[in-house]
C-alpha cells in the first residue's frame, strides 16, 4: 500500500497529461476516420475515459477528493449517454438497415 501511493510522488504529472492527450487524440482520430457508428460511439467512450483519467490524476496530485467524485459523475453521464446512443443505433439499423454514419445527412447543410 505504501509502495502504490508512492507512485504519485515518483511520476510527474506531465506524463499523465501527455498520456491523456494522446488517448484523446486517438479518440478524435477515430471519430473522424471511421464511418461505422458503433466505432464512433466507442471512440467517444475513449475520449470520455482519457478525460476521466486526467481528472483523477489531478485529484490525486492535489489531494482533493472532490475530483474523484467528479469522475464518478462523469461515469454516470457516460452510462446514460451510451444507453441512449446505442438505442439510437438500434433504431437506425431497424429503419435504414445500415449503421453507416453517412446515411444520417438530413441535417447537413
Amino acid at each position, binding site marked *: 500500500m505504501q509502495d*502504490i501511493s508512492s507512485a504519485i510522488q515518483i511520476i510527474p504529472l506531465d506524463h499523465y497529461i501527455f498520456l491523456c492527450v494522446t488517448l484523446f487524440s486517438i479518440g478524435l482520430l477515430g471519430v473522424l476516420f471511421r464511418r461505422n457508428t458503433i466505432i464512433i460511439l466507442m471512440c467517444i467512450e475513449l475520449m470520455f475515459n482519457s478525460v476521466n483519467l486526467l481528472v483523477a490524476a489531478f485529484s490525486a496530485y492535489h489531494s482533493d477528493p472532490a475530483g474523484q467524485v467528479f469522475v464518478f459523475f462523469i461515469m454516470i453521464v457516460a452510462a446514460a449517454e451510451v444507453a441512449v446512443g446505442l438505442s439510437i443505433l438500434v433504431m437506425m439499423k431497424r429503419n435504414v438497415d445500415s449503421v453507416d454514419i453517412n446515411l444520417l445527412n438530413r441535417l447537413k447543410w
Partner: protein
Amino acid sequence: MTFLFYLLSAIMIISGLFVVFSKSPINSVLSLIACFIAMAGHYILLNAQFLAVVHLIVYTGAIMVLFLFVIMLLNLNKATIPQKTSVTRIAAVVAGGVFFLVMVAATRHTLEIHPRYAFTSQIGLVSEVGRTLFHEFLLPFEVSSVLFISAMIGAVMFGKKDETHNS
C-alpha cells in the same frame, strides 16, 4: 513503479489504436476492453481504489458488454461499410495529429502545483470518496437519478417499434 506506469500507458495507446484501425467491430470492442482494464490499473497506481472498482464494473462489466450485445444482436460484425475516401482519411489523420501537437505544445510547460491540501494518499479510498459524495455532492447525486430515469425512458422510447409510422 515507473515501469508499471509506462507498461500500462503503452497497452492503452496500442489498444486504442487497435480500436480505431481494426476491421471488425468485435475486435474493436475487445481492444477497448483491454484499454479500460489498463486504465483501471492506472487508477490503482493513483491509489484511487473506488474509481478503479467502479470503472471495472461500469465500463468493462456493463457498457462494453452492452456494445458486444448490440453488435451480436444486430449482426454487425461483417465489415460491409466502406471506408471513407482516402482524402477524408488523410485529412482525419492530419487533424488528429495537429490537435495532438497543439495540446502538447499548450501543456508542455505546466505550472507548478500548489496543492490546497496537505499531501495524503488516502483520498481515493471508499470511505473518503463516500464522505465527500454524501456531504458536499448529495444534491447532484440525487439529481443524477433523474438523469438516469430519463435516459432509461428515452432508450425504451427509441427501442419501441414505431406503430404509427407503418399504418
